[in-house]
């Protein structure tokens, strides 16, 4: 019981550290601002060409602000959200090592397994915050620029506003799971170096590499195993009823990546000589 309380206390400290950091606040502001910018661009183009011929997600935004939430997720998941989570993950261990605070945490003693678990949990929460902020930014901007009404599903049926918002939240949660898996890759990389920037860049590169491999048709046998392959499947939530096969498979892939790299991070930190 007291172990659980101590664990939560450390997690709280970790989250305050992440959320209280100016750089992270600015990063979150940028994620939000990008969505506002996309909204304004869509608004301007909708005013110029009132009848857009295409029937995709972006075009649907002009008719209903809720869709800007989904559009925001699909735009930012390609680069900005993975980049943001790479910054947090790269910092996790390497940042503490670089500052020298890692040795004092270990001497406290934090316990190496406990440290890895708390860092991993805080990164997962960071991923969740990122995805939810982007979705929220979409809905708020959409509401202001386009207004909100009952959305039409991709299957053509009418959904309630609450149902639409609920599906948007599920989409954000689904992408948060994927980002959290990427964060575990970053956490592992972060145990390999004392340079947080190096860990961040390496993690962002891994994320980008997944997207590149996923777009090469000759490697289609590999695609199902790539972390990002089913990330965009969140749009299946807009079907009526929601189509979940790809999402469930995507969650399994997320879980597998997370488990493997969290284990690697733990194995690495367990025996690491802390000389910084």
């Amino acid at each position, binding site marked *: 019981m007291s172990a659980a309380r101590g664990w939560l206390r*450390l997690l709280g400290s970790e989250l305050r550290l992440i959320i209280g950091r100016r750089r992270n606040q600015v990063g979150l502001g940028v994620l939000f601002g990008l969505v506002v910018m996309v909204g304004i661009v869509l608004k301007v183009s909708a005013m110029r060409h009132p009848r857009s011929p295409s029937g995709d997600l972006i075009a649907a935004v002009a008719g209903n602000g809720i869709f800007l939430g989904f559009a925001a997720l699909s735009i930012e998941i390609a680069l900005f959200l993975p980049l943001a989570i790479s910054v947090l993950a790269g910092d996790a261990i390497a940042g503490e090592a670089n500052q020298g605070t890692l040795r*004092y945490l270990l001497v*406290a003693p934090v316990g190496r397994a406990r440290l890895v678990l708390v860092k991993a949990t805080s990164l997962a929460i960071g991923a969740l915050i990122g995805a939810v902020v982007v979705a929220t930014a979409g809905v708020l901007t959409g509401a202001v620029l386009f207004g909100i009404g009952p959305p039409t599903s991709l299957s053509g049926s009418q959904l309630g506003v609450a149902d639409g918002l609920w599906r948007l939240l599920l989409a954000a949660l689904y992408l948060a799971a994927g980002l959290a898996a990427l964060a575990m890759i970053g956490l592992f990389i972060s145990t390999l170096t004392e340079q947080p920037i190096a860990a961040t860049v390496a993690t962002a590169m891994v994320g980008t590499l997944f997207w590149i491999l996923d777009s090469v048709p000759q490697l289609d046998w590999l695609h199902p195993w790539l972390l990002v392959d089913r990330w965009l499947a969140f749009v299946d939530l807009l079907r009526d009823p929601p189509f979940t096969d790809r999402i469930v498979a995507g969650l399994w892939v997320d879980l597998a990546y997370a488990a493997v790299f969290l284990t690697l991070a733990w194995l690495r930190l367990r*025996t690491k000589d802390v000389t910084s």
Partner: protein
Amino acid sequence: MSADALALSTTGLTKRFGRQLVVDDVALAVPTGAVYGFIGPNGSGKTTTIRMLLGLVRPEAGSCRVLGGAIPSESADVLPRVGALVEGPAFHPYLSGRANLHRLDAADARSDPATSERRIGAALDRVGLTAAAGKKYRAYSLGMRQRLGIAAALLQPRDLLVLDEPTNGLDPQGTREVRHLVADLAADGATVFVSSHLLSEVEQICSHLGVMRTGRLVAQGPIGELSSLTATRFRVRTADVDQALAVLGGLGVTDAVRTAEGVTGSLGDLAPERIVRDLVEADVSVAEFVQVAPALEDLFVQLTGEGFDVSG
């Protein structure tokens, strides 16, 4: 000496970084209640040894026991009773001093959150940092940072304090305060293991010394025993230097040499009275005879070598 009488001990402690042997077969024995000065030039392996004692670095060979527990396997049980300052302070620059201590207190799985505010306040007070506790760490001076590092080591009642160069960056006043603090902690019953590259920093407060040189522990023991390792010297103020040297040669003093005011040499087994009597009987005018207490500094220099060269 039984295991419990030692707060800290190592056997055959060895560590290599790459191909360089940084710590070589070190066998520390720090009695419970001692103030143990761990001295040696920069780069002699002190900090790596300390990192192994605290479970930060794994020894390549040998073992450490701290407060009755093996390191690193029993670190979780041992380290809550150990306060440490390792290779200078390190904190989050954009957190205040107090917030940094809160974070470290949260990191300790066994610390009681109900008392953390009080313990943090007491630790800050003890190092004289209460007034600056709300300032961001990045705004701290070197001395304030050092004090915060010491405060972090005092968040809990500790049985052992491992302080690596605790007076680094402190002004003379701060240095004195740290000495007092160490003496207070020792008086409260804590064992203190304090490292320094300057003997003069620790000589006054230590009951025991260990001397490192190029990764090896070259001397260790109670400060009195170590002092006796250096020869007591004597100094004679006289005008009749040549005669005096002849008499001393006859007495078997082999290292007698001329000084500006007379002669000097090591006493060896000779009684001072004997030297004075022989000198006087040989008509040497003895203006002054002084027995020079052995200086630990001499021993230190003898053991570690002189000059500014860093141990390679």
